């Protein structure tokens, strides 16, 4: 029967952890750097096989051969790593590469011709290691030099790269330093029996860190899609197996102490573990979510909602820019009047007719500026839905005033076919409705060529106030028409694709309906029905 000492167990752990890592990089890595790294990982795996074999071997006759076999891996571990580092830092020096490969081939030859390991020796009452020659000492020194040089260059590279690559290189560096420190400790038993090669246990940490860096940060440009369900299943399987093991071990432990197996102790252990199992499972799921999936499903939904609100705000800011330019123009008229009347006041302060006109005009023009500024402020400030009676015609006049600048600039004619009931009113939030209609107008303006026309028709139907906004623009294809209210659907170069989706949301929020018809080359008609 095979007896597993710590050295053999560490070798086995290296085999278990490096084989999947090697296969992953081999099959998923496409670059030369990835291929070199795969060779480096394979060399470590080779050492893992060798060290496991050395650990379990009790036959003195094959001990020397086993060490020679294992050392082949050791020789190439730093060489492939250094070549990989040169590759990622874009150093094309063939000379450096040739020197390092040449020394590796020399030490390989020396190993195979028995110039490095002289004879086997039984160490720590546990397994056969070997007694080395002076060439082994040089080989060790060169091994350390290559490892150190590779890390120095890697750290220099780390300082000059962008953040995402930085995380990859930092983790890679931490992993390799741990691995090489562990590997270095394996050399010492060749010289002295003071230190047991426990360092071999550090090596698998290197592979775990690398695996994590690949999965999380796409090291070597390897991207692996981890399915949430698979990640959960694996972890829950591990927890479940640990759970069973703890129950079995607890049973054995108590059997050892009290001499017989107690169903009570087993049941109690099982119960205790059962109580902590679910919270533990939740914690593990939370940990996995945070590590690989940027948060739990609820957190991702919350982040998406915040993102959506942010986009709606940015869409609103875009409309505010249009409105502000409209307001800047609208304010010019009252400003002109105020300026002229103020200029003539000192000259005509005793003219009663002038003073009467002054009071009337100045007041009405100041009120107008105040109204315009309030309109923009109302529109800009975020507020919950505040429905109140709104005169739909006044609402449209306000929007059209805002947009007048655009209409004049693009020579767009506006035709208002308002319902004969001038006080046509609905119960709605005026600010939200302005946003909804504004988005339709902005789309119409974009669709219209010069001398285009927008017609606004309002009609009081039995249960609806029906509003039609019709343009003579380029129209929308049937295919696009089905997506017109989808968020992020846009055909404009600088559009967010949220305008009409926001409009749709607002109309629905008001228990209304919105419908669109369009003919390419002829124009588009939006029909909105709102409850009065």
């Amino acid at each position, binding site marked *: 029967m095979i007896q597993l000492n710590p050295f053999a167990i560490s070798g086995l752990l290296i085999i278990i952890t490096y084989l999947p890592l090697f296969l992953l990089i081999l099959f998923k890595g496409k670059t030369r750097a990835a291929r070199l790294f795969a060779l480096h990982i394979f060399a470590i795996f080779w050492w893992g096989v060798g060290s496991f074999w050395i650990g379990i071997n009790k036959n003195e006759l094959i001990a020397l051969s086993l060490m020679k076999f294992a050392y082949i891996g050791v020789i190439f571990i730093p060489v492939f790593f250094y070549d990989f580092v040169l590759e990622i830092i874009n150093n094309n020096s063939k000379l450096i590469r040739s020197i390092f490969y040449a020394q590796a081939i020399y030490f390989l030859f020396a190993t195979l011709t028995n110039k490095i390991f002289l004879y086997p020796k039984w160490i720590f009452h546990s397994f056969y290691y070997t007694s080395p020659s002076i060439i082994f000492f040089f080989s060790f020194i060169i091994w350390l030099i290559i490892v150190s040089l590779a890390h120095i260059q890697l750290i220099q590279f780390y300082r000059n790269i962008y953040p995402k690559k930085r995380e990859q290189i930092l983790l890679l560096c931490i992993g390799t330093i741990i691995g090489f420190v562990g590997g270095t400790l394996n050399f010492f038993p060749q010289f002295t029996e003071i230190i047991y090669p426990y360092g071999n246990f550090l090596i698998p940490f290197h592979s775990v860190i690398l695996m994590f860096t690949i999965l999380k940060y796409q090291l070597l440009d390897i991207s692996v899609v981890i399915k949430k369900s698979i990640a959960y299943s694996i972890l829950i399987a591990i927890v479940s197996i640990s759970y069973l093991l703890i129950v079995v071990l607890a049973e054995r432990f108590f059997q050892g102490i009290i001499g017989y197996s107690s169903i009570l102790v087993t049941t109690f252990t099982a119960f205790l573990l059962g109580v902590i199992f679910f919270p533990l499972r939740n914690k593990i799921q939370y940990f996995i979510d945070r590590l690989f999936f940027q948060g739990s499903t609820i957190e991702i939904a919350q982040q998406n909602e915040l993102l959506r609100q942010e986009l709606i705000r940015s869409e609103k800011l875009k409309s505010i820019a249009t409105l502000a330019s409209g307001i800047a123009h609208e304010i010019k008229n009252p400003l002109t009047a105020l300026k002229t009347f103020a200029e003539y006041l000192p000259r005509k302060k005793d003219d009663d007719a002038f003073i009467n*006109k002054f009071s009337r005009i100045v007041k009405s023009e100041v009120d107008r500026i105040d109204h315009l500024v309030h309109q923009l402020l109302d529109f800009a400030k975020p507020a919950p839905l505040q429905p109140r009676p709104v005169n739909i015609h006044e609402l449209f006049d306000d929007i059209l005033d805002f947009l007048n600048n655009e209409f*004049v600039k693009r020579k767009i004619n506006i035709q208002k076919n308002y319902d004969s009931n001038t006080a046509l009113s609905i119960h709605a939030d005026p600010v939200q409705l302005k946003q909804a209609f504004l988005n339709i107008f902005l789309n119409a303006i974009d669709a219209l060529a010069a001398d285009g026309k927008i017609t606004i028709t309002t009609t009081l139907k039995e249960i609806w106030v029906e509003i039609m906004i019709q343009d003579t623009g380029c129209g929308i294809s049937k295919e696009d028409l089905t997506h017109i209210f989808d968020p992020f659907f846009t055909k404009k170069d600088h559009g967010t694709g949220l305008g009409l989706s926001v409009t749709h949301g607002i109309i629905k929020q008001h228990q209304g309906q919105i419908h669109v018809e369009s003919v390419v080359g002829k124009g588009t008609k939006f029909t909105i029905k709102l409850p009065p």
Partner: protein
Amino acid sequence: MSKKILICDDEEGIRESLKLILGDYYNLIITTDGMQCLDCLKNAEDIGLILLDIKMPKINGLDILKQIKKLCPSLPVIIVTGYKSVETATEAVKLGASGYIVKPFKSEEILATTQSIIK
């Protein structure tokens, strides 16, 4: 006082401002939209200058300008507007406008422009 100035603007504040500036020097005819303006032009005599706004209900100022130029090709028309865009100004000049004054204007600017036309 010889020739009259025809003012066409839908904004009371602007009409009153122009009256304040020009009233002491010229006979003024005040209209509030394009149709009125064209009617006055057909009926009144001795009109030496028109001050015309662009943004007005029913008919846009530039369309009125086209019709004025059809009726009286040599009659000077000054556009008084808040639109400071090169495109609108170019369009107005192409249609035959003699000048372009941007709101908010200065009284001296209005007086100097009108005086240069009606001497």
